[in-house]
């Protein structure tokens, strides 16, 4: 009873916390809400008339939505870049901030589910894909696996993060026997969401570009640089704008880990390119379309090389200790990594997988305004979720937001 009452208080106090803030906070939230409004307007047209508002067609039947989905699964998986040093190696500087990784994962997963929902032709039938209620084709369909993996991982992160915050709020130490198994479970779960998402493409014999055994390893390698890239920038913002202490060594350690994963990612990309180009079988057309252009079609080429170049520069910046420990070059590196992986695991994965199509046709796909609008709405939703969670989590981490310290007015109201 006591727990339920306290949890209710925690929820109510959190709610009070997120509606009060500085002008900058209100401005930021208003900006996100406006973007979400734009997304909703764009989606309404699509909802009314169908996916014909997108530029996807039978030849390229997946596009910007599924590209963003795939990229964001990687961001969600990256929480374990904090969990492993924090909980497996008990490294204190990172353990203090590990919860931020979980919150990032939750936001990324919300966006993932959003992108899947806007991509399906019959959103009114979404219940067909819900376990138990609908008719899930498990274990045959990898999409069914993905539904289960993503939702379980979302639930897991949500439970752990909420529990940790709630414990801090009530000034109690969390129960190790409860948290540790869940945290350790989240490590294979993070690997699994990305592996399952990779297998979703990987298992299609009709699409040679995806039908490569190193697709899942490539997914993991790129995920473990893109997610942390977001985190590094975020950590710096947080310690500038709040009293949250984030030690330099935590940031530099994450950056060092990223150098290894980025190096590995580039190596795997090169391995794939070597196999395709040197073999030079008919299946080379897909990677040619990506990097060199095919039969006069060069749409993806500048993006593909931008991705490689960004990745290479970022790898060097993070590899050399001097540039890794320089804030300017570190942040440039983060942005470059983000850009590199966003291209590679987004459109750079989906479009060449489908172009040329199975009957050899090249359809030049570029996202429509509707797609860009809807996507910005979903990104805004993800950032909003993240912002609101941070608004609660940061004071909890600082020890400002506890039951004992609740404002008298709030206490009286409750």
């Amino acid at each position: 009873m006591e727990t339920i009452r306290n949890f209710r208080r925690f929820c109510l106090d959190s709610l009070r916390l997120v509606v009060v803030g500085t002008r900058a906070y209100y401005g930021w939230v208003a900006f996100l809400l406006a973007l979400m409004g734009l997304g909703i307007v764009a989606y309404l047209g699509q909802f009314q008339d169908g996916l014909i508002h997108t530029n996807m067609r039978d030849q390229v039947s997946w596009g910007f939505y599924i590209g963003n989905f795939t990229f964001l699964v990687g961001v969600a998986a990256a929480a374990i870049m904090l969990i492993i040093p924090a909980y497996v190696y008990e490294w204190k500087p990172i353990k203090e901030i590990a919860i931020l990784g979980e919150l990032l994962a939750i936001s990324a997963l919300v966006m993932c589910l959003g992108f899947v929902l806007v991509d399906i032709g019959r959103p009114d039938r979404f219940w067909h894909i819900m376990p138990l209620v609908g008719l899930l084709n498990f274990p045959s369909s990898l999409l069914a696996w993905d539904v289960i993996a993503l939702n379980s991982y979302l639930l897991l992160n949500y439970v752990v993060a909420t529990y940790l915050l709630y414990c801090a709020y009530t000034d109690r130490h969390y129960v190790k026997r409860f948290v540790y198994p869940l945290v350790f479970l989240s490590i294979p779960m993070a690997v699994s969401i990305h592996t399952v998402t990779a297998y979703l493409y990987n298992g299609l014999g009709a699409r040679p570009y995806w039908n490569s055994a190193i697709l899942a390893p490539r997914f993991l390698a790129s995920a473990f640089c893109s997610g942390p890239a977001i985190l590094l920038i975020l950590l710096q913002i947080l310690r500038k704008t709040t009293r949250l202490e984030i030690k330099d060594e935590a940031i530099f350690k994450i950056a060092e880990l990223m150098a290894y994963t980025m190096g590995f990612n580039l190596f795997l990309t090169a391995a794939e390119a070597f196999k395709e180009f040197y073999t030079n079988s008919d299946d080379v057309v897909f990677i040619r379309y990506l990097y060199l252009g095919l039969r006069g079609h060069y749409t993806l080429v500048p993006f593909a090389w931008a991705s490689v170049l960004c990745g290479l520069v970022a790898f060097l910046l993070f590899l050399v200790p001097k540039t890794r420990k320089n804030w300017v070059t570190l942040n440039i590196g983060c942005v470059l990594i983000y850009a590199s992986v966003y291209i590679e695991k987004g459109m750079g994965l989906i479009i060449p997988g489908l172009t040329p199509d199975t009957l050899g046709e090249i359809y030049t796909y570029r996202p429509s305004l509707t797609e860009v609008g809807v996507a910005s709405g979903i990104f805004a939703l993800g950032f909003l979720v993240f912002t609101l969670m941070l608004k609660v989590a940061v004071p909890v981490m600082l020890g400002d937001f506890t039951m004992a310290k609740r404002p008298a007015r709030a206490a009286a109201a409750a």
Partner: protein
Amino acid sequence: MSDTPKTSASSLACGEPQSGSRRRFIRAAGCAAVAAALTGCGNLTTEEFLQRNFRELDKKELAEIIARLEKEYTAKFRKKVTVAATPPMPGVVFGYALDLSRCIGCRRCVYACVKENNQSRDPQIQWIRVLQMDKAEGVNVLHADPYYDPPLVPQEGHFYMPVQCHQCKNPPCVKVCPVKATWQEPDGITVVDYNWCIGCRYCMAACPYGARRFNWGEPHLPPEEINPVTEYLGNRPRPKGVVEKCTFCIQRTRKGRYPACVEICPTGSRKFGNLLDPGSEIRYVIENKRVFLFKEELNTQPKFFYFYGV
């Protein structure tokens, strides 16, 4: 079901369970409420929303749904439209063979198919795609042109290869569908439940033959052009947002007729029959002609054979 064809899903709260078991109703009712809130516009009836997968329906439920659809289509197209759910014939597995040495690329099959199977005219959907190939390159999709438009066919130096659903014995599209909205029937035809498909298009990514089509927009079919004899799993009018494909004209072939594309072909390039009947023409072709399977290496095991008759 009232005279107005559409009632709001939000009428669920006060409406009564229409069909099926109460438990099922309650299980889905929550979803209905969410969807009503979500869709808002509410041009979806409660029965439509709650309808189960074709293979889960009992006889009574199916009859009710068919009656509902017939009424809806008849009103929409202003003529009597029938919807049948003809079961497969026992002892029959359909097979198809196409003579590449005879096909002249006239595309009559494409248009006969559209007419027979009620594909959307706007946006245009066609189930058969005819590829113009270079004779010097052989069967190679990288040298295929689906948009050839000369004043006369066949063109010198080219041959023509129509591609449609291969009705694979080992269909990758069925394997990947997350909601079992598409499956292979006992007579070997892979069908789609248009009322269950969620429109994720995973099957389109999985199909090596580009055989599946998506209703990107609301399909438009002029009432004077509709073929009113339809099949539930075949040529009945489709809603937007779902996938469709060739069914070997299930509405004809399950009643012993030829598919429309076979019937129209002016060169006799198209052969169709029962693979299990040793005396059938299709068996004769397979046993006596030079036959090949398109993308055989993918082990999809098509029941669609290409051959060189001359």
